[in-house]
């Protein structure tokens, strides 16, 4: 038997596989496909203080080995998440959940986290300072170390629960941002959010996405994500949650070898609703194949000699 347990900021996960925010709703949509209690945890849809409709459609475009999205943080707002979405999530998922929080000002992040404090099932906060699809907020906090530090510091004061800061890859030196977050009280770092991109329809000459630009995800970004996880996990002491294009159990092992303690699976859920289930089922065999009995052994394995 291969041991798949990992510890993420003091909370034990039965396995390191976590569906990524924005690709798994509030969980219950996937409960129609399989028992979601098999997941390590799940990061719910990015939640803001106010309800958000998001961007106009088209919000989605196909890319080689991936996709662009410009959803723009559509969510019902923190109050409805607590009163309507969480009760539905609880029917199907009984483990600590990761609360993904977005905002347009430091105060908004703090207010949203403070409200979510009354929900006991939240194990961690994943503070999204990296959404590329909204204007005047989101990613702007994640591309400047001082602003990233300011959000981290403010949220740190609002909760005793572990906070992970979700970083943008659309920066020159991601390790510098990660260090700024760690120094300001982050308990972990999660990365990467999507890479900013665009597509143009050659027949109309116009961008496919109404928002013009969107975030690239899927297997196309995996090598970029892996490189950044490798760099960040050596730049900070806190645990790193790695994501970006993970599709198979092999990808999970590779991401953990790069330095991730746990992983998030995003776009793969959208093209195969059973993606996370298959990855979790395949993990023991893949680990056995490389002679590993405890998955914790592979974390950061590529850093050594």
């Amino acid at each position, binding site marked *: 038997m291969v041991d798949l347990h990992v510890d993420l900021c003091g909370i034990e996960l039965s396995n390191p596989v976590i569906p990524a925010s924005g*690709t798994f709703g509030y969980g219950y949509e996937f409960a129609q496909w399989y028992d979601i209690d098999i997941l390590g945890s799940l990061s719910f849809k990015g939640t803001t203080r106010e309800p958000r409709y998001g961007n106009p459609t088209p919000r989605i475009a196909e890319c080689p080995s991936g996709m662009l*999205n410009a959803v723009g943080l559509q969510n019902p707002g923190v109050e409805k998440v607590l009163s309507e979405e969480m009760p539905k999530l609880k029917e199907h998922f009984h483990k600590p959940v990761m609360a993904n929080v977005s905002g347009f000002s430091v105060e908004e992040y703090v207010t949203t986290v403070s409200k979510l404090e009354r929900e006991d099932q939240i194990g961690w906060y994943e503070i999204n300072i990296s959404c590329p699809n909204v204007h005047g907020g989101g990613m702007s906090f994640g591309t400047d170390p001082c602003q990233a530090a300011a959000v981290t510091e403010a949220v740190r004061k609002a909760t005793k629960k572990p906070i992970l800061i979700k970083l943008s890859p659309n920066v020159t030196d991601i390790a510098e941002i990660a260090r700024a977050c760690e120094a300001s009280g982050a308990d972990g770092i999660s990365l990467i959010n999507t890479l900013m991109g665009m597509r143009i329809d050659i027949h109309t000459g116009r961008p496919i996405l109404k928002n013009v630009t969107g975030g690239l995800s899927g297997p196309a970004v995996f090598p970029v994500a892996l490189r950044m996880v490798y760099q960040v996990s050596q730049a900070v002491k806190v645990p790193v949650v790695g994501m970006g294009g993970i599709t198979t159990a092999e990808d999970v092992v590779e991401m953990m070898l790069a330095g991730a303690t746990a992983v998030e699976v995003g776009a793969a859920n959208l*093209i195969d609703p059973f993606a996370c289930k298959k990855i979790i089922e395949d993990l023991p065999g893949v680990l056995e194949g490389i002679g590993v009995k405890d998955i914790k052994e592979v974390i950061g394995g590529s850093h050594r000699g």
Partner: protein
Amino acid sequence: MKQGTFEITQNRHLTDAILEMRLKGDTSAVTVPGQFVELALPGFFLRRPISVCDRNEAELVLVYKTVGKGTEALSKMRTGDLDLLTGLGNGYDVSASGKEPLLIGGGVGIPPLYLLAKELLQEGKRVQVILGFNKEEEIFYEKEFKDLGCEVHLTTVDGSKGVKGFVTDAMTDLEYTYFYSCGPLPMLRAVFKQSKTSGQFSLEERMGCGFGACMGCSIQTAEGTKRVCREGPVFRKEELPW
């Protein structure tokens, strides 16, 4: 909703750009006309949402249009297996039809109306259908609807067959108790304005997942934000803020 492997038994051109594909497999999740499938295409990342034209216990019929590289690749497949998510979306509500429903389809919006017409006829309704095209060469399924027992009215924009003009030009003289429509957005909006009764519209949108997870296809309705893939693709006239 179900995931399953389907075998291609036929994939033939009905017109230059419209094809009819027959697929053998477990169709049990397809329960209502107006639902769609998400089809995985080898070599492409996202699945492709395609409405169900017809079904029986062992077979699905999809009628689709080649509009890009994905459907172009699909049009060249003659044999082999396809991975499908079936039973997606909220289809047409047959119970609202009254005695004499009118079905209004434009171009590649026509296929989901076929299974709907079948079910309405089985319930003993008098079914009138308006099929709208740009020109005669693009006409498909006229005979199929007639063979079911529908009263078919054709329109072509260039007047090469049937009533010259748009589907709305054929609506003027018809009496109906309710309507069901599917087609391009400008057509649906025109039908919305011209219709004398309540009815239902099937909408199209670029989708990420097709089963409600990504919020890629959300639209604003009179009753708040809804997902075309989950609460739709069929919406009641009263829901649409047109």
